[in-house]
């Protein structure tokens, strides 16, 4: 067994500013040792620890998709010590990635089902990974309808905007983009995510699952909407965040009851979450 604390060395291959306020950047990493990429085989919904020697590590959802080869990407909000340092790094810099960590969206269970994705703000990273995965020609036929409700404050705060526009043009995915208030040139929905979900999302049934990721306030108001639409708690899938260090269930801090968010999660059904203390 390999040392689970040892990150794979990676080189920053590209850095893109992801939002108009520059608080988020998307980092594209390539593995310095080619064989590490295979070891890093991941599924949509997992996360990794970005590791900067001397600064520490930060758990971030993987934004690239398993069907994208040769690199991994992470979209990172500048917030604390490690992420602030990361935002100041340059193309070509060397650092580490440790993972993949945690569980993933239950792709076996989701096969053959209709999928509703509800995302808000910058919690769209693993959702992007999931959409790319499902839209891959190899995979698209394995899923029913795909609906995506994605909201941000302004058009410039939507992540992966070019891809969103591309998806809008396709007929095998129903996009419902929304921004908080009207903006010039905006041709899509206006309003908060929960009401747009209520209006546009398909009804819940045995064959439809909702995956929800977003800021706490969005989650709070979206869950009742989903219940109203007929989604049962075991058909609502969420990804939780907690302070983490090791990322594989040993350091003890991310527990919610007996579940560890880093190892038993971050993906849980609402049904599971209801049976644990809300300590996230």
């Amino acid at each position, binding site marked *: *067994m390999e*040392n*689970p*604390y*040892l*990150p794979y*060395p990676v080189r920053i291959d590209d850095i893109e500013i992801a939002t108009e306020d520059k608080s988020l950047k998307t980092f594209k990493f390539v593995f*310095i040792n080619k064989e590490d990429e295979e070891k890093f085989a991941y599924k949509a919904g997992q996360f990794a620890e970005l*590791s*900067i*020697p*001397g*600064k*520490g*590590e930060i758990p971030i959802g993987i934004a690239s998709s398993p069907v994208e080869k040769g690199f991994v990407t992470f979209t990172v909000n500048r*917030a*604390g010590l490690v*992420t602030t340092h990361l935002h100041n790094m340059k193309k070509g*810099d*060397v*650092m*580490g990635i440790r993972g993949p960590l945690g569980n993933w969206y239950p792709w076996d269970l989701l096969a053959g089902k209709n999928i509703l994705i509800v995302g808000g703000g910058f919690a769209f990273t693993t959702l992007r990974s999931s959409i790319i995965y499902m839209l891959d020609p190899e995979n698209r036929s394995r899923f029913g309808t795909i609906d995506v409700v994605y909201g941000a404050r302004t058009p410039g705060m939507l992540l992966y905007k070019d891809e969103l526009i591309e998806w809008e043009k396709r007929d095998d995915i129903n996009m419902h983009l929304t921004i908080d208030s009207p903006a010039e040139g905006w041709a899509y929905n206006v309003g908060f995510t929960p009401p747009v979900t209520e209006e546009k999302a398909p009804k819940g049934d045995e064959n439809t699952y909702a995956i929800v990721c977003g800021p706490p306030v969005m989650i709070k108001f979206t869950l009742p909407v989903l219940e109203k639409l007929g989604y049962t708690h075991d058909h609502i899938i969420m990804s939780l*965040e*907690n*302070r983490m*260090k*090791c990322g*594989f*269930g*040993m*350091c*003890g*801090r*991310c*527990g*919610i*009851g*007996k579940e560890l968010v880093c190892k038993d999660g971050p993906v849980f059904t609402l049904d599971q979450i209801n*049976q*644990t*203390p*809300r*300590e*996230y």
Partner: protein
Amino acid sequence: MEIIKINKKDWNGGLAKSRKAYRLYGPIRVADKYFSEFGALAEDEVPDMSATDTRLSPKSIAFPPSEVMLEYTLDENSEDCNIMKVPEKEYPHRAIIGIRPYDAAAYLLVKKNFDTSEVRDPYWCDAYDACTFIGLAVQEPSLLDFSTSTNSGPFDESGLDVLLVDAGDSYLAKVITDKGKAYLKAAGWGKEAGKDAAGKIEALKKKAEAKIQSSVSFDNIRQKSVMELFEADFWEDTAFACMNCGTCTYVCPTCWCFDIQDETHGKKGVRLKVWDSCMYPLFTLHTTGHNPRDAKVQRVRQRFMHKLKYFMDKYEDGIMCVGCGRCIRSCPVNIDIRNVCQLMNG
């Protein structure tokens, strides 16, 4: 079951002999004090076999308060700049002499965390694997000992390789594993005890167990739901006195939570594993400022729920406590896990 008799006259000599193959650890009497601490024995030092519970538990042998896990250089002229490396580490055989049976049993509980079918913490596991536990049966249990009710006990063999029982002018050494046998051999102790030895050990065990006055019971905790216990109304009263000092978690033989920290000196640095505690607000603080366990009562509840409920549910085992009583003894405000267990079980 093989039982070896070690004449106490041969004790120091045997220890000395075993040093050729083992590094020795044991309780060391703190100068001018009434207590001992567990640690590596110096060349000519012998373990304090009369020691009561050491102040800190012996968990640090495999889980030091701070331990280097990785090292790095920030020197741009080095081809390894910014690349984490595993430092060379050696794990010579260690004999842990005179460990209390329940302290050794605690290692088995901690092992569930660090050694899983999916991931293995190499630092803890390698250190643990290098240990041979030569335990000393507790014949005079302390007032705070409730080990018999935690699936352990004063003569518990589960975590040991050899169980020593003090029989006056000799130790009866019950050989439990091959590792234990190898140690006794290295020390040159091989004289079979008589036929009555097993009976004698059994009688002393009964006697010691009978001396234990306190106990916990947790059968009902198993049946109760997490949320019922989590929302119980006694937590405010239980947590009131707590100062969140974390002493309970630091002295506990089963508390394993840790932090990971980088420290750079000049161009070189290390990534460390450092003891941490669920008693501290920083343990769960998000970067956003949100803290899921912001209040003292939430942190106190977490500690007891983890030990007495979550662990039990997660591993379908007993509680994450061996009943040594250290947390009760060291708590500056006398919060008593036995009382809390009773409230939870009630």
